């Protein structure tokens, strides 16, 4: 009984720490108001070149070749949905992966590490802030795109899509932990984030179906949580043909979540211990 109470108390403390970290990040972000406003426009500016490139390639909004490959010809809806998901990937790679380097810049990394909470609690706070931030960005992105183009979506598909997103976020948290640990070794963590982001951007079927990738890339893409997120969401929202059922997608995503979280936490713990032992935590 006592053990259970202790566990619940500890969980409540961790919850408070996660929330405090989230609030701290929002406060920091809102301190730079111009930067925050700029961040709201960013996702739109980011998406448009991909849409215009698609229009330049096919000379309009519909692609016969895309229809042959996935059963839907509307390139605007296809690409927009793909890029909405890439925001979540960037969140894991950048916001979480870069979080420790930021603390180092602020001169607070040692204080964070000396605090009586596990590191995963700290990164979970970062993740919570990133998810909320990303949802805000997606909202703005969709409002803008809906104002210019009409997206052809099936509203019934929203519920299974949200389910898939929730599972995908767990797996991305694992990737975020993995990235954060790299910052401890390489210091210039942006490079690792950027490199992995670039590779995952190619592997994830954002603006194209998996079928156009070389076979080895198609196989690698199956280990990336956003692949299932994007394909399943587009399947439910636009009718894109996929090679697996919803149950299979959820199962694979669940498995990926388990694997990535376990892998991310294990690598982080290992690297953190080594960095502490080597005394290089505060090195630049």
């Amino acid at each position: 009984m006592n053990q259970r109470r202790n566990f619940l108390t500890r969980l409540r403390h961790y919850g408070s720490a996660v929330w405090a970290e989230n609030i701290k990040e929002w406060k920091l972000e809102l301190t730079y108001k111009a930067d925050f406003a700029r961040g709201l426009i960013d996702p739109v500016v980011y998406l448009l070149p991909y849409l215009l490139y698609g229009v330049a390639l096919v000379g309009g909004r519909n692609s016969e070749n895309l229809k042959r490959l996935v059963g839907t010809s509307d390139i605007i809806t296809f690409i927009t949905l793909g890029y909405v998901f890439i925001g979540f990937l960037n969140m894991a790679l950048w916001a979480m992966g870069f979080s420790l380097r930021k603390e180092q810049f602020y001169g607070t990394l040692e204080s964070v590490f000396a605090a009586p909470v596990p590191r995963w609690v700290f990164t979970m706070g970062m993740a919570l802030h990133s998810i909320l931030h990303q949802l805000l960005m997606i909202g703005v992105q969709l409002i803008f795109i809906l104002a210019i183009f009409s997206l052809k979506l099936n509203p019934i598909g929203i519920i299974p899509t949200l389910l898939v997103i929730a599972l995908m976020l767990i797996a991305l948290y694992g990737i975020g932990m993995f990235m954060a640990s790299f910052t401890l070794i390489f210091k210039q963590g942006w490079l690792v984030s950027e490199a992995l982001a670039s590779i995952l951007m190619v592997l994830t079927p954002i603006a194209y179906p998996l079928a156009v990738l070389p076979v080895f890339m198609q196989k690698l893409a199956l280990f990336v949580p956003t692949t299932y997120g994007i394909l399943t969401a587009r399947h439910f929202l636009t009718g894109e043909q996929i090679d697996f059922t919803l149950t299979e997608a959820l199962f694979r995503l669940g498995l990926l979540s388990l694997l990535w979280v376990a892998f991310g936490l294990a690598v982080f713990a290992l690297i953190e211990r080594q960095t502490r032992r080597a005394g290089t935590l505060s090195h630049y």
Partner: protein
Amino acid sequence: MAHRRWQIELGAIAAEFVKTMRIWFSYPIIMVYWAVFPLLWVLPYVFQGRALVGSASSEAFRQLTGSGNYLAFVLIGAMISTFVFSALWGVGNSLREETYWGTMEYIIASPTHPLVILIGKTLAEWAWSTVMVIFQAAIIALFFGVQFTLAKILPVLLLVVLLMIGFYGFAIAFAGFTLLIKEVHGWVHTLEWVFFLFSPIRYPVQVNPITAALSTLIPLTWALVAIRGIILLNKTEINLFQTVLVLALMDIVLLTAGYFLFIYLERKTRRDGTIGMH
């Protein structure tokens, strides 16, 4: 006296050049990154092309650009934009980095003007990005079959030099901006995407009347259209004259504006006492 001052300032520029290079060589993996990854960023566009068109050439693309080879189009865009983005990050963001390293106050307190330091950083950035672009050109020529003959390289070099003179003016003004608003990391990202949107780095801006109109204000547009004309369409030197003239005029405007804006912003932050703030 003036001669001596010039000597001292040249010494400071050389010292800054060496210092910047030393910092880069402390992170050797960054060199590999900049040589390879700008080309990797192009791959999603290649696959997107395959998915939407189904072949390596697009008729709609040909009507807009004169060449249906969208792969060569985006590769050349990636190569030339390496210069621009390395200037934006390396020069525009450089004073902010000094703030992070805790060395900004020393630069401001030293008898050398920060603009001299920025010139040193600019030269280092130029040397660095040139090596990266040569490496990228070698990869493009070897693996993607884009031909770079000497007759094509010389006019392309002229255009790149003209493009970058003006762009460094812009980057110096941006460095001044970082003194004022501090947290510019995100602004650099946005600027990057503004260039992606309003200049033909990754897609032909003529596809939309708004992007087509706004793109004419960006030197990169003029340079890229002319460079692609030379490499992909074998255009003659006569077409080059107009682009050279426009770029030279833009250089004068950007360098002058960059210089005065930097001086103004640096003075303002000193006066406000906010230079050491984060």
